[in-house]
């Protein structure tokens, strides 16, 4: 890790995490942990079919069961307006959101919710759910993205016509949208190439696999006010979506953020929350709902599976002359795959003159996709980085050197259009090449792969409140659910500005009634955007304390400066005053104007783009095709690490998830289109014993728009692993693979085909 600049006292240190004790002692309250008097247990009835028309729903037997207090179906939910709202990585139509929460006319995937019941116990709720009789007309289904695009494919939505093309199609299809990005002259670029490689790739849909299933407690009072307690990546998002779906004034809904056991993008939308409110409204009692692991897989969103064609040309000396890609992304049951960002990120690590990327957003009878770390980018960059590696290999150029010859730099026009400011792509390549890891020799059946990755990062709306307590401690309020350690980072930034011990700052994620709107915790935005709000609020407090001291000293505020947690005279000309600490100022706040606080409500701009480069060593067992990851290093430009321990954790976690995506993970569907592996025994995520210690190297090219130089860090580390593993397996086996996951049977088949 880089040595921290000396000018900071707290930024760049590994402070004790504020949520640590609660989490290791079990005191932390997650979504399912709240119990209220009279609380009922809710259960969802889910479709057993991939595609079917709902003929009727008979709830009478369930309602007659003793202990059942409420049953709801789509008939209890007002029809939603057709309008676009932000949901994680993409815009989603509000009507689609409503129909995903509970099916109205058709079920569109195995696990689609069709009804919900609330009863006095879980056992009664489950029995009641089994008594709800849903009559279906089973329809032909389609799962695969390319199959769904065929003219004779079963059409999911009769009213969906491909957008982004002219003229508007006359026939409905499963292709929701076409997007295209490009610059330069791709044909001329390929004509200038000495070597062109074109390949087709596929990836399977994978789930975010957060450990904590979705869970909620909702309580609607007789006055129509609603309290919601849930695990999500944005309790303001929950309020907004529930208010819109159920036509309730936002002011009547208060959402509190429970601790969250992982989200990774998968909790940027709602599933159970509107159902729990509807049940509570009907029953007049609080209702708790929690998904089982099977329900998480069947009823919540994975990310897309994809089919891609990628073509890249390069000169003999390793300069890329053109890149061309066509991406087909499965959106699940409703439009809104991350194909747009996938297109925009595919070639962005590189400084290219000629690029074209076309993307298709395609619906099929799978769970509606939702964001997953750097939505879309791991998929498209996997394909591009695999070919970049192959080009380097065939041209006899070291893969890091090849990337260096083409790396995006400050001033590079990105493949999606904008001109980069200060970025650290090259610095990650330099740091990767300098590692011991990159130099150590490999043994038989072992291979080393390298891959880079890019993500935009975002800003957005955030707020913060800083209140100085009477004893000089500090209460920090903000509204971004803490998934990756943001409370620690907020406390550090506040302490840095205020000049006090970080342990005097207590950060709290407060409810939707207590602070202004926050966009979701996603897009690697919180330490950047909410952090900016915290810095601004802290500065406001500093200014207020300077004003109070100026009153005491009877000088102008310009005569008071804030240094190291104390008000001091700006110069000897101001007067001979003893410095006043924050605690001393707090102690007399009642005599100088009352409580001292500062607030900031911002829409943060200027999120710094981020790049990473990963190195992966594997060994492939030629007898079984089993891949062992021997060593892994993740290098990333993080701008400036506020809490390096948490940042390293982000890199390690992202790498682990990306390795799982590369080697093991995939939704498997049976012939009826139903999920065949809805559990962690059959959907295999890497566990600690599967992986080596992942080395994290933090490169710091500060983002000039953030007071401490922060760039988002959570998205990038999941991008390179797919190709890094793929390239390592190629080096170990001498075989280029173009489909994920790299399961042992797939590797054996690929090696056999080559031989």
């Amino acid at each position: 890790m880089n040595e921290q600049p000396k000018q900071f006292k707290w930024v760049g240190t590994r402070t004790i995490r504020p949520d640590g004790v609660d989490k290791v002692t079990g005191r932390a309250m997650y979504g399912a942990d709240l119990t209220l008097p009279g609380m009922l247990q809710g259960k969802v009835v889910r479709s057993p079919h991939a595609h079917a028309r709902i003929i009727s729903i008979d709830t009478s037997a369930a309602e007659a069961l003793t202990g059942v207090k409420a049953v709801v179906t789509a008939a209890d939910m007002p029809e939603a307006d057709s309008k676009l709202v932000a949901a994680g990585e993409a815009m989603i139509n509000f009507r689609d959101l409503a129909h995903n929460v509970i099916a109205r006319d058709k079920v569109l995937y195995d696990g689609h919710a069709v009804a919900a019941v609330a009863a006095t116990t879980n056992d009664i709720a489950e029995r009641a759910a089994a008594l709800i009789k849903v009559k279906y007309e089973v329809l032909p289904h389609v799962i695969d993205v390319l199959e769904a695009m065929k003219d004779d494919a079963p059409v999911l939505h009769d009213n969906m016509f491909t957008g982004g093309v002219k003229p508007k199609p006359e026939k409905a299809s499963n292709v929701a949208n076409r997007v295209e990005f490009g610059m330069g002259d791709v044909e001329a670029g390929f004509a200038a190439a000495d070597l062109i490689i074109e390949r087709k790739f596929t990836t399977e849909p994978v789930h975010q696999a957060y450990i904590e299933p979705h869970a909620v407690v909702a309580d609607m009072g007789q006055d129509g006010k609603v309290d919601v307690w849930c695990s999500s990546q944005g309790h303001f998002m929950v309020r907004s979506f529930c208010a819109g779906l159920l036509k309730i004034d936002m002011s009547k809904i208060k959402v509190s953020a429970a601790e969250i056991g992982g989200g990774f993008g998968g909790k940027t939308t709602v599933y159970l929350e509107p159902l729990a409110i509807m049940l509570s409204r009907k029953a007049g009692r609080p209702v708790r709902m929690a998904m089982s692991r099977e329900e998480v897989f069947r009823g919540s969103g994975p990310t897309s599976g994809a089919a891609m064609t990628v073509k890249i040309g390069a000169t003999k000396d390793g300069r890329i002359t053109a890149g061309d890609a066509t991406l087909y992304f499965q959106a699940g049951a409703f439009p809104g795959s991350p194909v747009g960002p996938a297109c925009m990120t595919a070639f962005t690590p590189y400084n290219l003159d000629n690029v074209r990327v076309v993307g298709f957003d395609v619906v099929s009878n799978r769970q509606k996709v939702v964001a997953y770390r750097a939505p879309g980018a791991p998929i498209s960059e996997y394909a591009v980085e695999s070919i970049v590696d192959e080009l380097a290999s065939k041209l006899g150029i070291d893969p890091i050197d090849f990337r260096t010859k083409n790396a995006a730099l400050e001033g590079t026009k990105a493949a999606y259009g904008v001109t980069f400011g200060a970025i650290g792509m090259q610095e990650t390549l330099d740091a990767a090449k300098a590692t011991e890891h990159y130099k150590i020799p490999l043994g038989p059946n072992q291979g080393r792969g390298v891959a880079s990755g890019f993500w935009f990062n975002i800003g957005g709306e955030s707020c913060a409140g800083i209140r100085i307590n009477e004893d000089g401690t500090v209460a920090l309020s903000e509204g971004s659910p803490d998934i990756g350690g943001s409370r620690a980072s907020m406390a550090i930034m506040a302490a840095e500005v205020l000049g006090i011990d970080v342990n005097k700052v207590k950060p709290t994620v407060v409810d939707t009634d207590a602070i202004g709107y926050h966009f979701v915790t996603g897009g690697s935005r919180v330490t950047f955007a909410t952090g900016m709000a915290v810095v601004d609020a802290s500065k406001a407090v500093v200014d207020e304390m300077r004003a109070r001291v100026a009153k005491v000293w009877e000088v102008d505020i310009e005569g008071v400066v804030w240094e190291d947690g104390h008000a001091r005279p700006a110069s000897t000309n101001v007067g001979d005053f003893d410095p006043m600490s924050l605690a001393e100022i707090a102690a007399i706040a009642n005599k100088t104007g009352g409580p001292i606080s500062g607030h900031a409500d911002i829409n943060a701009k200027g999120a710094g783009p981020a790049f990473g480069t990963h190195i992966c060593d594997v060994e492939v067992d030629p007898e079984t095709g089993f891949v062992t990851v021997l060593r892994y290093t993740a290098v990333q430009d993080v701008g400036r690490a506020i809490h390096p321990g948490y940042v390293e954790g982000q890199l390690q976690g992202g790498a682990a998830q990306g390795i799982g995506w590369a080697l093991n993970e995939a939704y498997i569907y049976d012939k009826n289109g139903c999920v065949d592996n809805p559990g962690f025994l059959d959907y295999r995520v890497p566990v600690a014993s599967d992986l080596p210690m992942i080395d994290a190297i933090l490169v710091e090219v500060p983002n000039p728009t953030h007071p401490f130089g922060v760039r988002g860090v959570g998205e990038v580390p999941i991008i390179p692993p797919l190709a890094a593993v793929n390239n390592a397996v190629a080096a170990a086996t001498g075989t280029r693979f173009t489909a994920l996951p790299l399961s042992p049977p797939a590797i054996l088949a690929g090696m056999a085909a080559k031989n």
Partner: protein
Amino acid sequence: MVKVVLTSGTAQQFTDGQTAVHVAANNVRQMIQALEAGFPGLGTAIQQTMSVAIDGVILPDPYLETVNEDSEIFVLPKIGGG
């Protein structure tokens, strides 16, 4: 006049393939109005589903930001994240 650069896909949809269009505007709000007037549907699409990048900074909710003839302006899909 400011130069607004569109993705090729957006251009095919709204501007007959013209990826760079010029409009009179001093801020993004005026720019969107002018784009809507010149290319019906484009301004609405920008407001509903797109971001605007000005001089390399992506703005998810562009409205009052100043633009001038030296500004590098791109219209992009909205970007979120996980």
